[in-house]
């Protein structure tokens, strides 16, 4: 039996060594973190606009085909007020959301089914990766044959663009779970369903989010290609506006639409997906503190 005195000493020693081993836990305030994440991006944008302005001044191309940043941004401001651009952005984003949502469901189902079985994985694993590398524009001729010039043709290609990446994210996530976690889960009493819920899914999450992010990039690209190729009369979308602007040689309007595409892409990727990814990585200690 251990007497009280030595127990107390042990407790103190443990507390002492714990305190010595633990690092500083302080985290900068939200404002500071937001600023330190934002200013490099702002600086990069300023640099890009500066280069654009210099190229404009150099008269590399006639000014009516290559307008200055100032002209494009004032065009963008005007168009945002004229009641055409905003609904067009809305329609495009709605299409993206619809296509991505369907791709998400299909990708997760396909990925989980394939990851569960060795035979299915060897049968469809490389097939899914093959689909992923296929340029989505290559689907359009077939999509037009199947669905004519319709909303469905665009959705078809957006889904085919995004779903394989999402499915691959699920498969890679499940494949790369450290076996130690599965053993620990079994020792703790996890069985089929509880193993999925409490061990496999959370362990696969970082790679799954990677797949979601990549799927979004493919969906967005496919959508832009689709909107340029499949123009449905009477429906204004970002792609349709760009095609119109090109037809009438309206360079400022064309480039204003491009700026919109870029901004939407950056917002979704940098704010939404990167935010989720960073949170997951920080919580799991995968982020190197700078």
């Amino acid at each position, binding site marked *: 039996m251990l007497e009280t005195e030595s127990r107390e000493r*042990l407790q103190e020693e443990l507390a002492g*060594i*714990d305190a010595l081993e*633990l690092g500083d836990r302080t985290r900068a305030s939200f404002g500071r973190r937001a600023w330190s994440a934002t200013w490099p991006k702002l600086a990069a944008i300023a640099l890009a606009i500066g280069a654009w302005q210099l190229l404009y001044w150099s008269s590399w191309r006639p000014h009516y085909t290559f307008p200055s940043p100032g002209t494009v941004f004032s065009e963008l401001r005007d168009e945002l007020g004229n009641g055409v651009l905003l609904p067009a952005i809305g329609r495009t984003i709605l299409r993206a959301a619809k296509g991505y949502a369907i791709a998400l469901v299909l990708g997760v189902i396909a990925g989980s089914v394939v990851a569960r079985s060795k035979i299915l994985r060897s049968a469809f694993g490389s097939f899914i990766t093959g689909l992923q590398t296929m340029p989505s524009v290559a689907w359009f001729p077939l999509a037009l044959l199947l669905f004519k010039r319709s909303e469905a043709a665009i959705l078809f290609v957006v889904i085919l663009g995004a779903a394989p990446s999402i499915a691959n994210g699920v498969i890679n996530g499940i494949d790369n779970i450290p076996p130690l976690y599965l053993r620990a889960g079994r020792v703790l009493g996890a069985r089929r369903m509880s193993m999925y819920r409490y061990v496999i899914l959370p362990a696969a999450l970082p790679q799954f989010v990677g797949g979601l992010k990549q799927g979004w990039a493919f969906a967005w690209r496919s959508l832009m290609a689709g909107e340029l190729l499949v123009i449905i009369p009477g429906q204004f979308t970002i792609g349709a506006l760009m095609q119109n602007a090109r037809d009438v040689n309206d360079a400022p309007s064309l480039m204003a639409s491009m700026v919109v595409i870029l901004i939407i892409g950056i917002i979704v990727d940098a704010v939404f997906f990167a935010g989720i990814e960073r949170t997951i990585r920080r*919580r799991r200690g995968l982020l190197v503190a700078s």
Partner: protein
Amino acid sequence: MTTHDTIVAAGATTPNTVAPAAPPEPLAAISVNGLSKAFGQGAATVHALDRLGLEVRAGEFVCLVGASGCGKSTLLNLVAGLDQPSSGTVNVDGRTGLMFQESALFPWLTVAGNVELALRLRPDNTLRKRARRQRADALLKSVHLDGFADRRPHELSGGMRQRVALARAFAQDADVLLMDEPFGALDAMTRDLLHDELERLWTDRSFTVLFVTHNVREAARLADRIVLLSSRPGRVVAEFPVDIERPRRIDSPEVSSLARTITDRLREEVRRHA
């Protein structure tokens, strides 16, 4: 060869071999009979364990020592039910908990979350969320980690993570704790403290321990009985009862002299493979 030779080394530790008059023989917590495990097929077959027999009494602290390839981890996996034997039987009375060299805490959960999950996954779980949290807090307090409940595992030191892993095993209410070199990756100072801590918990909570290590001193510091395994295939070649009074120190002369005896025997075993 049909049975393994079990040599009971007298050493400096056993004054007599006659058991004191204790009528009801305590139930075996672990009994392993004729256990064999082979991996691979044909010429490439590796016999990790060969007709191994072992009994561990309830409440006993047994250390398994052996050189590389003695199948220590294979044996623990079989006892834990994570793997199936090629032949032979394993019987465990009660629930088993298993601790690894790495803590195997889930990085997506907080420290308390890891302990709570163990409570939740118990087949007899009836606790609600609040009660689970309270129980987890109490278990963390028992390993002196109250105040760290909301930390993430990566924020803790290796020694602290192993204490969380201990709390998690207690959350399972394990009667038999299997430990696979749990302190192997820790620095000497932390390891000494954790030996004290483990001994304290074992004294207070009375559970059975089967502890694998290749550190002979650690075995002499902790065990009631040390079982020495041969390598490739693994079988029991010697047993050493440890009658050194607790609490022990790893640097005491008794522990050192027993460790020397066992190390000599272990080296003899290793020389056979030269």
